[in-house]
């Protein structure tokens, strides 16, 4: 019988990666033991008893690390403690951008699966933590912007005059971007969106928003529909067009990303300075460097009266919803991991960074 | 009885024509009511044919009847021509771009 260990997340984390409902399924469906640190669900307002009722047992952090075959967390929580042989860490470690986090794991008996690297195949959809979190972030980004914006989003005709609808510009129409579009549309804003992928156009329109087209994109829909880097000339053209749209917008939601690469800079300092004071930029790509030149990861700053929120983890503010989705994602991944019989399962290979303390992932070995 | 037997064909003809008259307009959209009324009115001016036929029979010296007949022909023609012209004018107004169905 394999053991699954749940460790308390760092303080800044509001989510958990396994809720009692999925603990129960782990125990019942996957026939595993689940052990957890006391107070594991406290941020979610889930008392320990609920976890215990679901079939998990309380344990000390050290013993959890020592006895578990699988150690589940969202963030890196391992500091070099003793481990079981063949133990596996499963989390969303974002190691490509934080190579330093690898160090603690190198040369341990442990394997490390980082779910952000999961190939985005159809089969992996129900374990796809990036999609889950991105959608929540997209939703939250609009709410956050609406909260910070000192005007209102919908049009508003009253006896005291008419308030114009806010213009919302969404950069990058991936998972987060589409959700942002949908949410802003719901609130009655005038929404424009931009993306380099040509198929994005139809997707944007299917949500009733306007798509800004920049001619001359070179497509390459390999690697699961991700974007690829573009020519300098194209980027130039794009920027010029973008600039006018940015400066007309009251709210800009940035979600443009290129996996494993620095995020493209789409909003320059100058554009920000030309925006109307009081405008809001929410940059979900902040962790990857940000789509806005001025955005600071994890901080809300102000420049020329424009508020810039740099936050790639807005999903944390929806802790309950996020935990619910993560919990299902983790469960599905564990189910796949435990039941997988294939020798080289592409899903597992895609997200396994370390095998028994050795780097095995191509993206890490190459460079 | 006998009358029916003799005029069977005529009766069939009339009934069938009436039936067609009703049938043909039973699905007319309400906005065409007025033009259709006008068109039907023009057709009813076919009485003009009757006026012509009778004119052909009148003695060329029977001035009273010639005058009456002339008036009848004139009135019938007015009904026919006016009716068709005005219907045409009415229908022209529907000529907004309406054929951009997908």
């Amino acid at each position, binding site marked *: 019988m394999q053991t699954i260990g749940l460790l308390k997340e760092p303080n800044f984390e509001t989510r958990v990666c396994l809720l009692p409902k999925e603990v129960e399924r782990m125990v019942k469906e996957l026939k595993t033991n689940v052990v957890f640190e006391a107070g594991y669900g406290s941020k979610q307002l889930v008392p320990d008893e609920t976890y215990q009722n679901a079939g998990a047992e309380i344990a000390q952090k050290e013993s959890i690390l020592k006895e578990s075959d699988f150690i589940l967390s969202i963030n890196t929580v391992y500091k070099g403690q003793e481990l079981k042989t063949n133990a596996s860490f499963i989390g969303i470690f974002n190691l490509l951008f934080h190579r330093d986090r690898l160090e603690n794991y190198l040369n341990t008996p442990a394997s490390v699966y980082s779910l952000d690297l999961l190939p985005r195949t159809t089969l992996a959809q129900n374990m796809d933590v990036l999609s889950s979190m991105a959608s929540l972030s997209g939703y939250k980004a609009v709410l956050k912007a609406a909260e910070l914006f000192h005007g209102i989003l919908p049009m508003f005709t009253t006896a005291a005059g008419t308030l114009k609808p806010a213009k919302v510009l969404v950069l990058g129409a991936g998972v987060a971007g589409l959700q942002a579009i949908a949410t802003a549309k719901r609130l009655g804003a005038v929404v424009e969106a931009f993306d380099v992928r040509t198929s994005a156009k139809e997707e944007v329109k299917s949500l009733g928003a306007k798509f800004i087209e920049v001619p001359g994109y070179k497509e390459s829909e390999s690697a699961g529909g991700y974007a690829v880097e573009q020519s300098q000339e194209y980027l130039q053209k794009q920027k010029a067009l973008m600039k006018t749209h940015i400066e007309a917008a009251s709210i800009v939601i940035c979600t443009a990303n290129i996996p494993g690469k620095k995020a493209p800079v789409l909003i320059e300092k100058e554009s920000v300075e030309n925006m109307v004071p009081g405008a809001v930029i929410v940059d979900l790509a902040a962790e990857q460097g940000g789509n806005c030149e001025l955005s600071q990861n994890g901080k809300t700053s102000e420049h020329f009266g424009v508020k810039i929120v740099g936050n790639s983890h807005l999903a944390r503010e929806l802790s309950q919803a996020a935990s619910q989705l993560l919990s299902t994602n983790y469960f599905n991944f564990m189910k796949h991991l435990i039941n997988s019989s294939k020798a080289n399962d592409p899903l597992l290979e895609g997200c396994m960074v370390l095998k028994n303390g050795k780097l095995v992932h191509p993206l890490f070995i190459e460079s | 009885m006998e009358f029916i037997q003799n005029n069977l064909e005529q009766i069939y*003809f009339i009934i069938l024509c009436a039936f067609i008259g009703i049938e043909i307009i039973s699905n*007319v959209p309400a906005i065409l009511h007025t033009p259709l009324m006008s068109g039907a009115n023009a057709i009813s001016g076919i009485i003009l*044919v009757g006026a012509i036929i*009778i004119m052909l029979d009148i003695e*060329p010296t029977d001035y009273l009847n*010639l005058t009456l007949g002339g008036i009848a022909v004139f009135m019938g023609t007015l009904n026919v021509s006016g*009716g068709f012209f005005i219907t045409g004018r*009415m229908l022209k107004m529907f000529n907004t771009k309406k054929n*951009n169905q997908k």
Partner: protein
Amino acid sequence: MSTLIEMGYMLSIFSFLGGLKFMSSPKKAKQGNMLAAAGMILVVALTFYVGLTETVPYINLTIIFLAIVLGTILGKSISNKVEMTKMPQLISLFNATGGGCALILGIIESQFDASTSGLGNQITLIVGLLTGAVAFSGSIVAERKLSGKIKEYKTKAAILFGRSVLLVIVLLPFLYFSGVLPIGFPAFIFAVAGLSLLYGVLFVLPIGGADMPVVISLLNAITGVATACAGIVYNNKVMIAGGIFVSAAGLFLTILMCRAMNRSLLKVLTGTFKKGNKSSSAEAEQVVRELSIPEMVMQLSFAKKVAIVPGYGLAVAQAQHACAQFQHLLEERETEVHYIIHPVAGRMPGHMNVLLAEAKVDYSNLKEMDEVNDEMDTYDFVLVIGANDVVNPMAETDEDSAVYGMPIIRAYRGKQVVVIKRSMNTGYAGVSNRLFEMENCALLFGDAKDSLQQIIGQLKMI
């Protein structure tokens, strides 16, 4: 030879048929009119040709020819000159000429073969003459009424008198043919003609002016009967067919028109008006013009610039989607459509915005009241949907009104105004609305969503 003529006749019968058929489809109506006209020309030409071959005196032919030419020219010029809004009058007038023609025909014919022809033929002749006379005088009265020259004259006495005349007209032939009446055939004919003319007047007089279109359609059907009778007398298939087509179609059309106005033919003829649940409030009854959906769509189809004024009723009916669909339909027909949003329309600030945003109405279609209030008269058609107080002109004129001083959308300045609401109930402010009584305004009673959906259905057909 005569076979060729028979076939020509047959051809024109079918051209009438086809013409009527096409005329009942919006797309082909124009061709239909052409076709029927072509058939008419054919049959007239054929008849005239028969005259030419049959050695008829030239004077007769000349008269015929001149009368035809004159009639055509006059018909063309009249119908070219008349204003669009006067159409029904004109149709009525033309119908009168048709009826008059039948009347004269009957009179002439009665002199010719008074006693020679059988009883059947005589009866047919009388019916033709009678119906022609009624159509003639009735149509003229209808025309006068439509032009407002004669007012409604609806007393019990008139109605009763009309019915007695009808009775006499029906009894007279019985008396005559049973030999009770000691008069000659011509005298008898004149008596019938005179009485019929009288009855035509009495028949139309008591009917309300708004119902005249229905009456005209009915009189048209009556002319059809006259024509068919004449056709039977001359044993002329085209006349029979044409007459029967017109009378059957006309009668049915009359019924359809009544149905579209939500009234029964009987009620129209007796001049009874639907009372309905208007003005449940204690207010003095307002006199308003009620409109049927087809009439409204007909007017709408001529408009190039339309304003929609939405109000609380749109929200109550949840008719926003229907409204947007309606707008798109109009736009497809290249009509310009604006929504004019009053600041306090609805029950909360921005109420209309919420609704229209939900229906994905483009913000560029929305106009603010102040923006357009001075140019309201550029709108051919103003459709007020479930709004009341915000278009109440008393806010501008009546100092004692509870809404006095509130800026309003000057819907009343539109060339045509139609208000969709369910009843004569007042709006939020509880005051009656003078707009409804205005001359350019008509009411369309019903739930906003239902009404709009029906309008959409009709609009799609054009």
